């Protein structure tokens, strides 16, 4: 208190009044009374100059004042009680019934499985970066899960396997969300009421509870997002004490959490953008501060480069390094990666491989496209359907290892089986490729390809070596000359069709159902050298030739890193909505249009349904509109130069600064989904929902405080308090109504009487 008084004396009288007012609000909202009457509203002494200048001494004193204020907010005893309350409620709601239901729910089938992969050290492919799954694996490992549960499909019983540890880990991270939100809002608005509303919104939201309770990436992702925002806000508040220990701490924490968020899912990019924009504004402000020398500014700039760029980058790369070191056994994701990449994996046929060095006639080979995630040349006993070119056997590109990827190299004429050393294939040779399983020849002709209409169709044709002229292909080593040998794994090879002159090509498009959704292989008349038309020989089996070791292939770490990113991005954009799948649209989300079924469909099953508490979500939606309205009114009032009293000025300031940051966060986490082509789900909205809830807290707080404009002090205080109580009670009651959604229900469905959710199916699109 003493420091505060001294500070107060420094400041002008107007600010004294403001300080006292704020102190009243912050120190205890249970006894919000009294002194307001003593301070007559200070009208219009702030001129335009005051409001616009954020430089120099005034800014500093202002900042100092805010700090003292902040400390008073944080230090008062009721603050600690409130915080404890939030912590307790948050953990208890998330950890309640954590082991129910005892079977695999929804995407646990993926992420649980991937956690097991880490424990088993098996390599796999996923479209998300590895941190989240690594943490899940670690949590499982620490709590005694042995990685043996197969996680085949949702609904499988866990039985004796220990799964609670992994769920508990996610739930604990999820429990931090309301706490972080509470702290962020308290720091942004200097108001306990706003913080309390926000925390209540998140604690009692069934959607947030549900999504935190299972083995999913989202609680981990949101934990890092919120932690990053919190540290960023803390860092912003230390702006007046640069280069102190706590300043560095929050800066580095921000960077760490950014790396964490990006390391769990690429959605973390949005919070990086938020932090980036915030930093740019911050630097811009510093640049305009003429009391700082250029050297200082450069120091500021470099500190941020280190804390927000270099450190996260380093951490992110480290995560991948750990990922690659841990996963050293071959698994089912191998085929997505290049031959060089696979040679790292124990158990892969390319690991420490030895095979004949040069391609020769009579060998059995697999041919892999050079485009990343291009696939193996593949054929099977199915014909192209009617109306798609000639009705001959399909030739496709297939990402997985399969015996149908095997081809035999033959001379054009004879099906030689002579003894002795086989001849080697040379650049310019004419060969015939016979599919080992079906004995059809690789064939092309002047029919249009199934998807890429300007290319020619490639089929399997003929049986047992009898075919026609269209089965002949000329081998061309890229950059080679006539007579060059074809090196296995290392040479880039193109196959030119003899008759039509086209080149064997993998278009990267996915065939429809009839082609088993494998990749399209065509013969392209455009002869440009692109990875799509280049292939390499991966497996090479010829018992008549001596094998050599191929350890030269081992790729560099950075190459692996780059390749795995390209494969992930390809995989992400390849997640296109299927024709008949119900695709969730971004505009559905804020209005809580439709949830996700986590577990159970029928009456007898244990059903969990991911759906936000509609009261809370609709309130969030409404408060977005309300916020925009309030901020418009406030900024027009400021722009027109209406004289506002000190309190209103502060409220406008919180609305524009704090609210603006949160609105930006919401936009960044929501708007980009409109531009995404990949398949979208309801749970993608949850990070944005956190920002929206925090904005709601601030908006309602200021709305309540603005009742002072309408009523005289004692009544307005009563109104404020009733308002707050009604709000909190509404959240609690709606949570009571909807809690079976997250904690599970059995028995009849909601549209029948006698259900736990009877009468609560407010929208027809909810499926519980």
């Amino acid at each position, binding site marked *: 208190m003493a420091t505060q008084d001294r500070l107060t004396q420094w400041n002008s009288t107007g600010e004294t009044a403001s300080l006292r007012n704020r102190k009243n609000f912050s120190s205890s909202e249970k006894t919000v009374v009294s002194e307001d009457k003593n301070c007559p509203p200070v009208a219009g002494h702030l001129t335009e100059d005051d409001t616009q200048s954020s430089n120099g001494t005034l800014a500093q004193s202002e900042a100092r004042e805010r700090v003292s204020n902040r400390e008073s907010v944080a230090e008062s005893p009721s603050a600690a009680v409130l915080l404890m309350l939030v912590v307790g409620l948050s953990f208890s709601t998330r950890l309640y019934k954590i082991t129910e239901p005892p079977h695999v729910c929804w995407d646990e089938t993926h992420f649980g499985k991937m956690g097991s992969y880490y424990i088993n050290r098996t390599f796999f492919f996923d479209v998300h970066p590895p941190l989240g799954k690594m943490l899940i694996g670690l949590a499982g490992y620490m709590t005694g899960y042995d990685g043996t549960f197969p996680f085949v499909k949702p609904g499988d019983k866990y039985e004796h396997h220990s799964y609670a540890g992994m769920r508990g880990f996610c739930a604990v991270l999820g429990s931090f969300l309301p706490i972080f939100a509470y702290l962020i809002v308290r720091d942004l608005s200097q108001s306990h009421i706003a913080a309390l509303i926000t925390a209540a919104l998140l604690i009692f939201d069934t959607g947030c509870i549900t999504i935190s309770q299972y083995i999913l990436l989202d609680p981990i992702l949101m934990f890092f997002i919120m932690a990053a925002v919190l540290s960023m806000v803390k860092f912003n508040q230390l702006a007046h004490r640069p280069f102190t220990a706590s300043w560095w701490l929050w800066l580095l924490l921000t960077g760490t959490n950014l790396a964490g968020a990006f390391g769990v899912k690429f959605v973390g990019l949005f919070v990086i953008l938020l932090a980036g924009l915030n930093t740019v504004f911050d630097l811009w402000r510093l640049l305009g501060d*003429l009391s700082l020398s250029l050297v200082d500014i450069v120091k500021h700039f470099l500190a941020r480069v280190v804390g927000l760029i270099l450190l996260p980058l380093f951490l992110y790369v480290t995560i991948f390094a750990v990922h690659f070191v841990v996963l050293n056994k071959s698994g089912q994701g191998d085929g997505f990666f290049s031959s060089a990449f696979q040679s790292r994996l124990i158990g892969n046929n390319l690991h420490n491989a030895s095979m004949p060095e040069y391609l020769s006639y009579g060998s059995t080979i697999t041919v892999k496209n050079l485009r990343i995630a291009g696939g193996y040349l593949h054929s099977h006993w199915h014909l192209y359907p009617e109306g798609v070119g000639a009705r001959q056997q399909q030739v496709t590109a297939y990402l997985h290892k399969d015996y149908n990827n095997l081809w035999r190299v033959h001379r054009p004429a004879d099906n030689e089986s002579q003894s002795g050393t086989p001849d080697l294939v040379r650049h310019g040779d004419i060969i015939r490729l016979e599919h080992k399983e079906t004995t059809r020849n690789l064939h092309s002709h002047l029919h249009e390809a199934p998807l*890429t209409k300007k290319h020619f169709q490639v089929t399997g044709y003929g049986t047992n070596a009898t075919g026609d002229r269209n089965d002949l292909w000329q081998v061309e080593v890229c950059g080679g000359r006539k007579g060059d040998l074809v090196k296995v794994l290392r040479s880039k090879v193109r196959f030119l069709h003899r008759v039509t002159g086209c080149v064997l090509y993998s278009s990267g498009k996915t065939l429809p159902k009839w082609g088993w959704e494998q990749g399209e292989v065509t013969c392209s008349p455009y002869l440009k050298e692109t990875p799509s038309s280049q292939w390499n020989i991966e497996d090479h089996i010829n018992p008549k030739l001596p094998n050599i070791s191929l350890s030269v292939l081992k790729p560099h770490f950075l190459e692996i890193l780059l390749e795995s990113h390209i494969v992930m991005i390809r995989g992400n954009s390849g997640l296109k909505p299927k024709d*008949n799948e119900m695709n969730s649209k971004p505009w559905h989300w804020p209005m809580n249009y*439709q949830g996700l079924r986590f577990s159970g469909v029928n009456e007898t099953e244990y059903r969990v349904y991911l759906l936000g508490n509609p009261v809370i979500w609709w309130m969030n939606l409404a408060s977005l509109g309300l916020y925009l309205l309030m901020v418009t009114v406030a900024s027009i009032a400021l*722009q027109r130069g209406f004289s506002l009293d000190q309190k209103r000025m502060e409220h406008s300031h919180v609305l524009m600064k704090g609210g603006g940051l949160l609105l930006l966060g919401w936009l960044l986490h929501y708007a980009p989904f409109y*531009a995404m082509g990949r398949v979208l789900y309801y749970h993608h909205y949850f990070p944005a929902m956190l920002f929206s809830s925090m904005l709601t807290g601030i908006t309602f707080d200021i709305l309540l405080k603005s009742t002072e404009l309408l009523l005289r002090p004692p009544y307005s205080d009563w109104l404020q308090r009733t308002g707050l109580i009604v709000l909190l009670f509404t959240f609690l009651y709606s949570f009571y109504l909807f809690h079976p959604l997250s904690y599970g229900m059995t028995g009849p469905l909601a549209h029948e009487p006698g259900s736990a959710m009877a009468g609560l199916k407010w929208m027809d699109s909810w*499926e519980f």
Partner: protein
Amino acid sequence: MLQLPLVVTAQVDLVLVLVSLLGLWTRLSHLSYPNAVVFDEVYYGPFVSLYMKRVFFIDDSGPPLGHMILALGAYLGGFDGNFVWNRIGAEYPCSVNVWSLRLLPALCGALCVPLAYLLTLELKFSHLSALGAALLLLLENSLIVQSRFMLLESVLIFFVLLAFFSYLRFHNAPSSSWLRYSWLLLCGASCGAAIGVKYMGVFSYLLLLGVASLHTWNMIGDRTVSHLSVCVQCVCRFVCLLVVPVLLYVFWFYVHLGILNRSGPHDQFMSSAFQAGLQGGLSRITQGQPLEVAFGSQVTLRSSTSQTIPCWLHSHKANYPIRYENGRGSSHQQQVTCYPFKDINNWWIVKNPGRQELVVGSPPQTVRHGDIIQLVHGMTSRYLNSHDVAAPMSPHHQEVSGYLDFNVSMAAQNLWRVDITNREAESEVWKTIQSEVQLVHVNTSAVLKLSGMSLPDWGFHQLEVVAEKLFKARSLGWTVEEHRYGTSQEQEEREVELHSPTHIDVDRKISFWAKLLELQWKMLTVKQDDSEHKYSSSPSEWITMETNIAYWLHSSSNAQIHLIGNPVSWGVAILSLLAYQLLAAVYLLRRRRGFKDLPDGVWSQFVCLGCVCVGGWLVNFVPFLLMEKTLFLYHYLPALCYLYLLGPALLEHTHTHLLSSVTHRRALVVCASAVLFSAFLSYRTFCPLTYGSPELSANQLQRLKWKTTWDILYRRR
């Protein structure tokens, strides 16, 4: 008293007149050469023909104004719509007035040149800069090519430039004059027109709105203006810049729908109600149908329009296979499918479960919301049935079949409840075309719907129909399209009756707004399969013009037309963009540190230049980076025009504010003239590829291939 002498003083900017004339000359000379279909004329031409014949069509490439402008040209030239636009290079017959077809886009293209001049003046730069901008635009080969044919880019550019010019004219006018609001009105109108020509216009419109709201915001902050005046000005701006464009946009559709009142090839995309408003086509069939469905009615049921392909509920004499390929069993009853073509097997009879007759009683007993019905297939007399058997392709839904009794204790479950989804808007009575109906299975409360899958060979690749228990989307219903009251009791008679066309009489219309919404929605959602094109390119190639497009090649000689820009001006454009950004960054940083290099007036002029020109380039270029559709070089032209305005203005800025010594200034002037002259030379060089004449030899063509990535055609002799 009349004062004599009567005097009229007129000021004519001769430079303006000169550039206008030059613009007209470069764009309009030999307009009807080549007398053949050039490039996208093959795309727009059919629409022009359809306008002439007043036949309805949907085009997802843009709103109707652009097409209507092309059609207006055709109409003025007396085109009768009888020309088949089947391939690029097809010769026009002499009955087609090619000159008039191409006149309007060419005029718009020509007028862009003086507009660039005026716009630079409104940006408060000198006449010399304005002349420079106009000349750059004038000598740009790609703009010339794009203007001289039946294409829409030049029209779009014209309206966008006009919008900015008139807005700036409004902004620069003294605030006392009320005449300036006519400029604002013109601005709103040209925004509406720009959006009406191509959706791309939206981005420029948004930029203009941004600039305008910034200015308005400053005006609000101006405390010397009274509150009342601020309110009035805000309302005026709101009306002119928001209401007027929207109204105009709607108006284009009004005209479009007013003109196109005959049915045509794209009818099937639209709902039955929409089609019924078109002459011929469905309205010819449905004209005079009884309105209200009654027990005994013979109907065809069309699945609701939210599906991409329309189809009708169908059944035929073929059963579900006993076992499917994957080993699952079926009921082996008669198949029920959805069939995308009109067919005799699409007819169903609405039967009252309580009565045996299949004829309409007198008076007809109408079917209402909530009634229980049976549906009898007209040709095979099977009842529409569903039961707890997994559907063939989507096993989580129920199978729907035409009931056959195999005596396997599988009782018929063929009662359906009529659930009219739009009964609030229409009525409780089931009406032809207007009512959207869900058929709810009484035993299982599952809903009849399309699953979206097609059946394999045994189902003749028709679409699968299933009954779904937990039904989500409300909009998926069925509408009765063809309808008549059944009169024949016997099966043979009924078959004859089903074959006969329906004819009786009623007239019905849906409102313009319903039509507008439906059409706009269809235009935005109808997807053409993205076809790879030989000359398609990616946005990153445009900046340095790595690509070109061959528009036309003479059928026997080497004469050809290409979309190739003027490499010199193209370079000037991109250099000026970079220079502006560099300069702006330096100015901004220095201003922030308290060094005011420029006086405030000059600074705001500089900022305004950046907002309009660099902003214009950004909003017309960046969206393409995010688009997934097939893109061409001509999509870059609107963005390029902004850069041509930027270059000369930036030069003037450098001349007056950055260079202080006279020699430097002179050097700059010399450089600028040299660049302009070389732009002229390269314009001359590429003229043969721009105008398609004179014919060049293979060697000369080879020499014009300045970049290896360009694709210039040589005819083998």
